[in-house]
């Protein structure tokens, strides 16, 4: 029995059923593909563990991270202090745990801000020539100044505080995201369906936000995970050069820079924060890779 369209399939229901299985199959494939990629799963687990540590820090930590006790300065790891103590007797284990909260907070906010700002700048830059020129030249200008030097100068201007670190690192990483968002927005603009929308008389902003933005969301999200990872490293580098978070705040970066001074007598002050920093960044990179293969196969 062939219906009028001479489509070999029997009936509407079967067509509908096949379409449903296709969509299910496709999602199944995507999930399997992500799971198959063992590395990105490992990355996801690491990131989740860190998030859990950050959220439940008060209950996990054994001591108050801010409480100093100069008599117990630089004790090696022991039953009482699992990761030993730092120069003024603070428990390194609790500080590493609370450090997760600070470092993830820095990473999330820098990643978030630069993604949102970058998306907006990229989108509007792709709309008209003049705006594009101005915005892109500014981005090029900011990008050609070495990230670390720009961050240090910003920190000196703003003074040592956590919010200033976030502002500086966000300013440093936004141009990168903006450039990437702009180039993918330009690609999407040329697509036929955007052309079609324009012919249907859709308003400019509607096209921008309803059609172009969702399609460049994938690369921006991927870029966000990498901005997240590099923000954690940048915060550590800033503290290393003495321009980072004040040493009261238990961030991994400041603990590493304090540990550097005592590397001979107290290896544990560098080992544990270093391990946690590297592990988190490794997790983020793995997760980012997996995400990119999934969301945005064409760019890998």
């Amino acid at each position, binding site marked *: 029995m062939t219906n009028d369209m001479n489509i070999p399939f029997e009936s509407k229901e079967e067509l509908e059923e096949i379409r449903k299985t296709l969509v299910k199959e496709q999602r199944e494939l995507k999930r399997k593909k992500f799971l198959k990629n063992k590395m990105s799963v490992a990355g996801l687990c690491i990131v989740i563990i860190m998030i859990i540590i950050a959220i439940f820090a008060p209950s996990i930590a054994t001591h108050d991270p801010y409480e100093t006790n100069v008599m117990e300065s630089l004790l090696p790891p022991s039953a009482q202090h699992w990761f030993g103590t730092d120069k*003024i007797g603070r428990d390194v284990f609790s500080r590493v745990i609370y450090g997760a909260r600070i470092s993830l907070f820095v990473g999330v906010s820098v990643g978030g801000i630069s993604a949102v700002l970058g998306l907006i700048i990229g989108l509007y830059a792709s709309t008209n020539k003049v705006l594009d020129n101005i915005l892109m030249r500014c981005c090029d200008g900011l990008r050609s100044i070495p990230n670390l030097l720009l961050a240090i100068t910003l920190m000196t201007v703003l003074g*040592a505080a956590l919010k200033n670190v976030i502002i500086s690192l966000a300013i440093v990483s936004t141009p990168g995201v903006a450039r990437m968002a702009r180039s993918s927005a330009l690609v999407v603009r040329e697509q036929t369906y955007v052309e079609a929308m324009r012919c249907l008389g859709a308003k400019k902003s509607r096209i921008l936000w309803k059609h172009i933005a969702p399609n460049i969301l994938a690369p921006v999200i991927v870029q966000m995970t990498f901005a997240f990872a590099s923000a954690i490293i940048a915060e550590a580098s800033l503290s290393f050069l003495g321009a980072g978070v004040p040493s009261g705040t238990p961030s991994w970066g400041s603990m590493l820079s304090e540990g550097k001074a005592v590397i001979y007598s107290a290896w544990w002050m560098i080992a544990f924060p270093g391990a946690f920093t590297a592990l988190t960044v490794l997790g983020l990179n793995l997760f980012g890779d997996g995400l990119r293969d999934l969301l945005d196969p064409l760019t890998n």
Partner: protein
Amino acid sequence: MRKFWKRLVPVLVTAAMVMTGCGGGSSAPAATTGSTGSDAATAATAAAVSYRDTINIAVQQEAPSLDLHKNSSLVARTMCRGTVWEQLVTLNGSGEAVPELCESVETNADSSEFIFHLRKGVLFHDGSEMTSADVVASMNRWIEGFSTAKSLAGDARFEAVDDYTCKITLANPCVTFLSVIAGSAQPAAITTEEACANEDENGFLKEYIGTGPYKFVEWELNQYILLEKFADYVPYGDPDAEMDGWAGYKHAYTEKLYFWYVQDATTRAAGLQTGQYDCIEGVSSDNYDMVANTDGIKIEQYQGGTVALVFNKKEGVASNEYFRQAVNAATDCEQLLRAVYGNFYDLGSCYMDDAQAFWVTDAGAENYNKRDVAKAKELLEKAGYNGETFRILTSNGAAAQQGMLVWQEQLKEAGINSELLIFDWATFTQYRTDPSAFDVYYTSFASVPVPSLKLYFGPTYPGWSADETLQKYVTTFNTSATLDEAKASWETLQGYSWEYLPLINVGHYLSTMGYQDYVEGLNFYSGMYYWNARIPE
């Protein structure tokens, strides 16, 4: 196809050489490549023994400039005072001013006029002979640039009497004027008249010409400063006797002094351990045990200066005397010093260091380091303190921040809640000048020969110690006619100061120097000096 490989192979070979190029290095210390040729044996003592011609010294900061008249950087003056430039008078072992470039000094009865009889035949590095014209030009340039000298001298300036004599007449008597010339933070370096006039665009000396045993050769910014032996240096004092403080015979056994700028303490300590450097300035307590228990390395410590928490007495919560006493009662100086300096500190209520033995007194010691939380709380009631934030200003050095964290906790126990303002050094020095910005700032002051050089007694100096009684004692001290009179007024001043508390004198920090045991003749009087330093072959 073959040619591709022909091109690739040489690239690989050179790369491999680069990678393993370092393998061949012998494990012997690389930096002190000593030339075996012995230099001409200096006059009397060292006839037989020949010495290595280079000493490598690692210093912790880079001097902003070597123009000593115009900047008080510690590293610049320890490098050059007495080495490149000499002074009219210098400090002996007990902190008294003794002649260096002058034969003798005539002081009138009430120590308001000083006549300097210069030594003859003393040569500058550019070969010209030192005359009173050079001394007058240098000393007046020094007064213009140095705040304490200017406040003591007022409008009085040096003037030449004849070719080898010059004098200065002060408005009012000042018995400590000679000590100020001898040991001030901005050394009274004697250079030629032409050099004083020859300034660069920013007003700094273009050439560094002095009368010292070493002349300035080269400054590779961010790397090293090189001083070389000045062949026709005219020494003074007895060649066989040990030097008394900074005064005495300077043999200058070593040809070249390399001052390497190594900012990071750990790297400096590692450099000393591997023999790359012969001496290092600034061993931190963190890597003390790494350096100390390596054989062949010696450590020298002396009181480098005092650590102070200076209150803002002009505005804010700290302008109330009871509040300051409450803070003093809440402070445990030992814990604070340990947090910052590890075990490189000395407790002591005296504002002056051991090196200035004459001025050491324990007046006011009863208020020093007597932590009593109950008494602190009582004083807080008297001060009418009801929880305002006590703003603590500090620089962003890791040690300073850690010290302040410990202090914050001590204050919290006494019921004072505080907030930390952390900036880099340049911003810190500017913030300190604004009375509305802070309540107390934490800093350390290098040791000074006379109490009048204690800047925090100045009414306009940040902290604004403008209290009449305090200023009364300061002026009586400055204008005392004899040294004993000055000592007595200094004791009353320090006693009252521990009452009025313009600052909390937390204690003394120990400057620590590390050097290889084969280095002989180092001078450790309030600094590490290399006038007689030598490394036998």
